[in-house]
Every structure is written in C-alpha cells, then in structure tokens.
C-alpha cells in the first residue's frame, strides 16, 4: 500500500502539476492528476489561493489556476528538503 501523503506533500504535488503544465492549468487537469476527491481538491485550492501560492485567473470566460511566485519558492524549498532527506539517508 502506498504511504499516506502529508498535507505539504499534497500541496507540492498540486503545485508541481501546475508547474509541469506551464504554470497555468484548468481545474480539471488538477483533478485528474492530483489523485484527490473533488471536495478535497476544492479545499486545497482555496488554501493555496489564501496562502498566495496560486492565483485564480479568468481567460476567455474559463477559470485557470496559475502558479504564483510564493508557490515557486515553496517548490524550491520542498525540493531542498527532499535532497536533504536523500543525502542524509533519512
């Protein structure tokens, strides 16, 4: 069985998904790739907007989620921590 992801790991996965799609995606893309239920995803997206990690933007009447500067910074920090746990064998 796969290990349960922590809240911050889920956040990283969502941000990473947006980053891989060029930094701006439709909510359905996150839903398919995020491996989360619709309700949980909605909760996480609101939390990410409140924290300033992503921004909700509208383009030609369609809703998109766009990665913000703070989101990129969080991703960098997360990658550093991943490298630390690997380097120290934790």
């Amino acid at each position, binding site marked *: 069985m796969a290990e349960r992801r*922590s*809240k*911050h*790991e889920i956040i990283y996965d969502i941000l990473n998904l947006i980053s891989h799609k060029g930094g701006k995606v439709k909510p359905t893309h996150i839903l398919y790739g995020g491996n989360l239920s619709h309700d949980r995803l909605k909760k996480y997206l609101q939390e990410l907007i409140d924290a300033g990690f992503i921004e909700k933007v509208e383009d030609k009447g369609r809703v998109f989620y766009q990665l913000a500067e703070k989101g990129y910074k969080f991703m*960098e*920090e*997360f*990658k*550093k*921590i991943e*490298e*630390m*746990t*690997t*380097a*120290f*064998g*934790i």
Partner: protein
Amino acid sequence: MAVNTLPWLFLFSTGTQALGAIVCFLISILGFKGYKIKEDQKLLYFFYGFLFLGLGFLMNVLVNLAIQFEFAHYLLDTRYADISFVFFGIYNIILIAVLLAYLSLAFTYADVKNIKRVWLLYIWMIIMGVYSFDKSNLFNIFAAIPLSFVVSFTFEKYLASKNKKILMTSLSFFFLFLFHVLAVIENTANSIKLLRYVALLAGLIILLVILLKIHYGRKKK
C-alpha cells in the same frame, strides 16, 4: 600523563568547534524546515540532534574563550558561585542533550517506528550524562556508542542505495565518532589532540559540502 595543550592547538580546537556549531545549526534549521514541510517525526529528531550538537559545540567554545581571555575565574571563583552554577548547569543539560541527540539519531537511522518503546534507553542516557559531566573520557565513550550505530546504519543505507551523498554522510558521522573515541587518549600527546580535531574538522567539512550541494546543487541546471 597529561601534556599542556599548545596555544595554536587550543585556537585550532576552538575554531573547529565554532565551525561545528555553525554547521550543526545550519543542518538543524534545514531539519526543522523539513519537519514543518513533511511532518515526519524522523526529521524532528534530526533537528533536535543537530541543534543540541551545535549547542554542545557552542558551550565548549564559550568555555575555551573564557579560559583564553582569562574570564575563567568567573566560572571557578566561589564569589561568583551563582554565575558558575547557572553556566555549568546549562552546560550539563546541553551535554546530556547531546547524548540524547545521538541516541535519537541512532533511532532515526534504525527506523525505530515507536520511540515510546525505547524510552528506558533515554533515561539511562540521562543518568550517564549526569554521571559523566566532570569525566570527559566517560562522556565521550557514552557519546561514541550511539554514534557507532549511526555510522553502521548510514553505511548500510549507502550499500543498499550506492548514493555517494549517503556515503559522505556516513563518513562524516564516522569522523564524529573518531572525534569522541580519540578523546579518551587525547591528553597523552598533542599529536593525538591534533588528530582528534582534524577528524572533527574533516567530518564538518564533509557535512558542509553536503549542505552546499543541497543549497546550490540544483541551480547549475
């Protein structure tokens, strides 16, 4: 038979321990950030481990500087009993914490899932820490015991993964282990004392290289 420490060796050992404090604090900050992000208990033990290790080095540096600049009388004179009581009280607590930190690191690397099941070892370590406060040799042997496990576990992890960074981590812990083991015979010759601090410096440089790789390694892309 104890020999007098040469002045430059005294400076070298103080400088190395100052570097030790800086490196350990930097690693502990990274460990704390890691704990906040990943919510993994192991990273919390890792943070405490390096935090107390850093504090231990810092206290040693302060004692060395007090001796070097002739402030030692504040710590030894009965007229300043209150100052020395507080100082040595904090020093003793930090040294006990260093032993507990090594034990926590050993548990972290041993993948002990439930720390509560091994609480008795923490009690024993506290007793050993109190008993060994004024017995440097004994303190260093007690410190070397959990560290030997850390060295062995990290080396096992390297063999399983063949990751060079884990080998570097294992090596740094080995040098730290050597630093404690050599303390037992350091007073017999200045060369042993020098070797002891060279071992510590080597361990710290390796840790620093790992830290720099973590911080700047990615930005080359």
